[in-house]
């Protein structure tokens, strides 16, 4: 046995990322690590690769207890990670990247370029990679970059390789290429851990599977013994703890209609509608295109095709300004980066999208602005000393309320909430849901993107599921997590229990 993890724990501030992570990996096996968004897969692997420390539990490497302080230490022991986003130096050559930090030297500290290139070429040839040692890394495709990372790991003599969703950005042919490499590594008695939530393609290469849910290992065993249904059940669990329930309203007039929207490279032929008084959930895995859809609707990315109608009227939305004028609001997923000006007072943030409302002939009416700040701070129970407080000094939940209030001040009618509860505590979550409910009751239409299935089930009237840039299904609000996961992760026609080994 190569690696053994027992009850590994990790906290980030007050948030528990890993409660009890167990994992055993043998030499010469491909071990799949599965779980929902936020189940703790990446955190567990970062601990193994020495990128993060652990707060508790045991880690045995080749039978010895280890505690890696940094990735270099893990690498020296033979553990290497192939990253989702490439961590290569784009301006250097393939060979230079493979040997980065471990260059063979000549006397006087000169780098032995000829040897680097020769040894890199040997590794590439040995594994039949479609690469050349002299190529510049920036010119490579995502798959090519991953191959360079794999070469790097092989060059270090790694006996355990971790792939973090390697195929999420790859084409079909490139995916097959990566599989071929993974199989070749297994045949050379290397252990491979493969993080994924796309099971369909993995029947082909997986030997055993470990499923994480809410930071806990809930199942581990041979892949052949598990049906797809069973894996889904392990991933989503049975119990959905309700923190909030909402009574749906009879939906009103159509507010937003999207027909055949296409936006390269991801979004393809998307059609749906939002009605007044409705909260429509949007589920899907990370990378399914949900954020991209919000961006496209809000005029942040140019459309390649399709039509958007607001209250029945076709509209052209070329910029966020057009979207705001059309009565739309986007509460972005990344508050700090795109939702708020954290270094400015909250009163400035409240009025940022509707400064016209508090100004006459271009001059700001500070009294009116102050009143708005006081009103909304009280109405939304924002914990702030005054409107002058800097937005960045509020807690996550209160920041989110300010980001939402910005649109309430302007009187928007169509709301796109992208992960509205990310990084906020349970109390604030309920308050955010209440705000959404109130908006819906006042006749607004709401699209709510969320990776938290339990929240969608509690709040949404119906749920759209996205998968690889398309809407793969529409479900009633009272559906089950299994159903959502089925549409989010699998080709629905193939989502039966069939074993799809090659």
């Amino acid at each position: 046995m190569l690696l053994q993890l027992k009850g590994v724990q990790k906290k980030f501030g007050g948030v528990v990322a890993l409660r009890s992570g167990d994992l055993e990996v043998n030499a010469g096996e491909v071990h799949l690590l599965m779980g929902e968004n936020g189940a703790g897969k990446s955190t567990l692997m970062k601990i193994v690769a020495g990128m993060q420390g652990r707060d508790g539990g045991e880690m045995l490497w080749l039978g010895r207890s280890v505690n890696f302080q940094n990735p270099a230490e893990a690498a020296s022991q033979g553990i290497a990670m192939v990253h989702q986003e490439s961590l290569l130096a784009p301006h250097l050559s393939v060979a230079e990247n493979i040997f980065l930090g471990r260059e063979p030297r000549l006397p006087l500290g000169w780098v032995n370029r000829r040897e680097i290139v020769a040894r890199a070429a040997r590794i590439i040839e040995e594994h039949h990679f479609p690469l050349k040692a002299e190529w510049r890394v920036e010119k490579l495709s995502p798959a090519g970059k991953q191959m360079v990372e794999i070469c790097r790991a092989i060059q270090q003599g790694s006996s355990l390789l971790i792939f973090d969703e390697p195929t999420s950005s790859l084409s079909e042919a490139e995916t097959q290429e990566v599989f071929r490499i993974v199989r070749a590594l297994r045949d050379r008695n290397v252990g491979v851990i493969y993080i994924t939530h796309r099971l369909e393609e993995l029947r082909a290469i997986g030997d055993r599977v470990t499923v994480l849910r809410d930071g806990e290992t809930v199942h581990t065993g041979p892949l052949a013994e598990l049906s797809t249904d069973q894996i889904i059940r392990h991933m989503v669990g049975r119990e959905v703890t309700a923190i909030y329930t909402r009574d749906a309203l009879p939906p009103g007039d159509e507010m937003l209609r999207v027909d055949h929207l296409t936006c390269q490279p991801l979004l393809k032929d998307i059609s749906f509608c939002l009605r007044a008084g409705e909260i429509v959930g949007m589920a899907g895995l990370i990378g399914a295109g949900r954020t991209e859809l919000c961006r496209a609707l809000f005029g942040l990315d140019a459309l390649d095709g399709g039509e958007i109608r607001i209250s029945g009227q076709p509209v052209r939305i070329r910029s966020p300004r057009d979207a705001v004028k059309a009565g739309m609001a986007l509460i972005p997923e990344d508050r700090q980066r795109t939702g708020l000006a954290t270094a400015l007072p909250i009163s400035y943030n409240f009025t940022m999208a509707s400064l016209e409302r508090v100004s006459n002939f271009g001059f700001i009416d500070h009294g009116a602005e102050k009143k708005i700040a006081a009103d909304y701070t009280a109405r939304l129970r924002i914990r702030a000393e005054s409107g002058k407080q800097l937005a960045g000094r509020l807690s996550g939940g209160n920041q989110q309320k300010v980001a939402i209030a910005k649109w309430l001040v302007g009187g928007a009618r169509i709301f796109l909430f992208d992960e509205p509860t990310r990084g906020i505590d349970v109390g604030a979550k309920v308050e955010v849901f209440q705000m959404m409910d109130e908006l819906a009751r006042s006749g607004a239409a709401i699209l709510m993107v969320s990776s938290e299935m339990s929240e969608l089930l509690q709040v949404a009237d119906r749920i759209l599921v996205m998968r690889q840039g398309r809407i793969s299904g529409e479900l009633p609000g009272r559906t089950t997590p299994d159903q959502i996961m089925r549409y989010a992760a699998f080709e629905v026609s193939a989502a039966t229990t069939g074993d799809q080994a090659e």
Partner: protein
Amino acid sequence: MIQRLLPFFTLIALFVILSIASPNFLTSTNLSSVVRQTAVINIMALGMTVIIISGGIDLSVGSILALAGLLGTMTMEKHGIPLGMVVGLIAGMLCGFANGAMTTSLRINPFIVTLGTMGIYRGMALIISKGLPVHEIPPSFSYLGEGNLLGVPFVLWILLACAAVIHVKLEHTRMGRYAFSIGSNPDAAHYAGVPVRFHIIGVYSIAGLLTGLAGMIEASRLMTGQPTGGQGYELTAIAAVVIGGGSLRGGEGSVLGTLVGAFIMGLLANGSDLLGTNPYWQQVIIGGVIILAVSFDELRKRRMTS
């Protein structure tokens, strides 16, 4: 709060120290000359304040100053003072407009754009003038830079008027608020529907206009249109903004702060002249003050966020 007022106290302290140390300091002749010397930098620095608040930078203002002054005085030779003034101001504004338009449409960092236009505008001034200064200026033009109104230098009134207008713009109008929003977080401003490009171009145009005015004042003080004038002024203007609490990361800065910053540098220069300090040391002292002022300000901000 006390630390925020540090530049202000520094200015007062400097004033008191110089009054005691030199009998020539607190005379109307000397104080007038300080005002006249700093007015040009001050007016440029007001424009720079708006740019820096919006998260930008303009290295070309020294060249704009020369080009605007040159075109203004050349026009004056043939068509009189009023038209000359108009041409100078508009030339400055167009230069600023071009800076803003290039930054937003080519999506190049303003540091690079204005590094380029710094050379372009300077070169244009030299080409147009064939490298020779303009001397044939109507004598009454000297009133702008050297005249007095109600017992104080005329330029002080101009400076106060500009400062008041820019202060009101920044603190009380939508344009000013958008400058802060864009400088603090351009993405959030864009997401909120703020017409970011339009306002960035506006900011650079206003700064260009003020620089054009500064260029005319400089020309009036020297009674020449100098194609080689204003070299290095951009850095002094940036220093004034930064000493006054402006942040090169954007979203911070004020008119009052900038005025204080410019006068601190003015007094340091004047004081070293009066006290007979080696002029080479002046540069060392001013450089040290810039670093000190900014490090104090950083310390204050870090304490505020923690």
